[in-house]
């Protein structure tokens, strides 16, 4: 073997260094590109209209102006929008977590009964269906039941979903069989096994699913748009959109409503980033 030429080795090191500098620069540029529109939206929401339209764009409000937020909060229903979003998101998140755990336990490896895997496959298959497919009959159902313009109408289709069942089934599968068998030998009822062993041991995954579902429901728009047309029942996402019809070109105000619409989500994210990443890690790569 030929001894490596010291000149070439140094050159190689320089090239590698250079490449890594370029790589880091690109990754940082990408982060900046993610942040700019968000930063701009927040900063613009604190401007009066004349400053907002000035060219070139101001990136910091020179005359900070709270009138957008004042107008927003002066709106009759604004606190209601928050309340509505909180109610539907909490209800859906709790329901999804509880019923996913129960259903996940049922279809896990802890039980075996005829048709179990067929049922599970059927539940998973619902993930493929676009919401459009079931939307019209669901709307007709809600209308027949007299539930249009109610929280119930928003909440019902979201009370359980295949993703949650899939996630919790994985979690339950990982509970050692011995734990359940020990309980059974001690004469514990299956319901007790569920509440005393399955739920505590699946808790981290349940927490991840809770956050995930809460955010998903908070962000939902399509179905609420279909079943809600009374102003006081609007969720925050609906309100953000409908306000754009009402305030037309008052852009600082519209941006202010967008900021207010995402503050709760940002808070949730800030406190639960780990959960989030974990729930996604779990979702994909073990099945």
């Amino acid at each position, binding site marked *: 073997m030929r001894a490596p030429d010291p000149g070439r080795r140094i050159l190689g090191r320089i090239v590698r260094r250079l490449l890594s500098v370029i790589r880091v620069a690109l990754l940082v540029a990408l982060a900046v590109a993610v942040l700019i529109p968000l930063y701009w939206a927040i900063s613009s929401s604190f401007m009066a209209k004349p400053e907002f339209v000035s*060219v070139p764009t101001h990136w910091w409000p020179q005359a900070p102006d709270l009138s957008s937020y004042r107008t927003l909060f002066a709106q009759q229903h604004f606190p209601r929008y928050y309340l509505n979003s909180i109610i539907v998101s909490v209800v859906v998140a709790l329901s999804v977590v509880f019923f996913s755990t129960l259903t996940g336990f*049922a279809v896990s490896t802890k039980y075996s009964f005829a048709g179990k895997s067929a049922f599970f496959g059927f539940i998973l298959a619902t993930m493929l269906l676009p919401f459009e497919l079931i939307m019209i*009959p669901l709307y007709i159902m809600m209308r027949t039941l007299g539930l249009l313009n109610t929280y119930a109408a928003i909440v019902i289709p979201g009370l359980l979903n295949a993703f949650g069942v899939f996630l919790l089934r994985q979690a339950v599968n990982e509970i050692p069989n011995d734990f359940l068998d020990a309980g059974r030998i001690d004469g514990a009822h299956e319901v007790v096994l569920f509440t005393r062993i399955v739920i505590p041991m699946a808790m981290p995954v349940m927490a991840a699913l809770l956050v995930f579902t809460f955010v998903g429901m908070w962000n939902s728009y399509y179905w609420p748009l279909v079943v809600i047309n009374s102003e006081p029942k609007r969720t925050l996402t609906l309100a953000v959109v409908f306000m754009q019809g009402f305030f037309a070109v008052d852009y600082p105000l519209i941006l202010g409503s967008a900021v207010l619409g995402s503050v709760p989500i940002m808070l949730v994210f800030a406190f639960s980033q780990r959960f989030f990443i974990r729930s996604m890690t779990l979702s994909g790569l073990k099945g």
Partner: protein
Amino acid sequence: MALSRHRLFRRPWDRWGLLFLLPGLVFFAAIFVYPTLRTINVSFTDYNLLQPPKFTGLANYATLFKQGIFLDSAKVTAVYVLVIGVLNYVLPFAIAIALMASRRLVSAGRALYFLPVILPWVVVSTIWRIFYLAPGPISSLLGLLGIRYAANPLTQPSTALLGIIIIAMWKTFGFYVVLFLTGLYAIPETYYEVAEIDGANAAQRFRYVTFPLMRSTSLFIATVNFIGAIKEFDPFQVITAGGPARATYATTLFIYETGFKFLRMGRAAAASLLLCAAIILVTVVQFRVFRPARD
């Protein structure tokens, strides 16, 4: 073997499994099975919610294929899905690999790139709709770089869809970066060490180690990305409402407006069945393409 009188259950407690399954089954039957059957049924009728449905056979499907507006919407969705499908695969993969090479950036990058993912689509749409105004923030930024460009892509039929695609990439790429990172972390370090000893360069390490071992991750991401893109509704409705000149009139928007604006439930139902068929078809193809060579 006389294991049990009941063939349904192997052990005495197994009946509880079925019992625990019941609420879920009732839910999925009521929210998915029954409505799906009802949609199939409605798709063969003329139904406007007010009068009882009139059976019209395949008329709705025939109208859809004769109507330029539906076929155009299918084209918009196809272009959107195709472009997003490729870009949202290649870019997040490259970004995840770049992050792995600069480990110190992984946790910060992951958190920052993930930020738009958690924001409501409605909020993202609203912000970007205004961010695109020209002259505005974008033309000002480009001006700093010495580029004079002041046009709003959303106002031109030729660029409006591209404008939405850029927003969708901005909103969703972080999700796939995180998924790719998870897959990359699962590849044992030793594989790369062996490849390096064998004298493999970066491209070869990707070709022979990373890519084959990311097959199942790839399948998952391709599927989730594709289904997400084809179901997309919020940005089309909020950012452009399908315009200008229906350049961003996606199939989902077509279904929504046909059903809830024009009250043509039968036609909307038929279109939603076609959309569902497209999803199932492409998912099956993806599973074929990415199926592990041997497993």
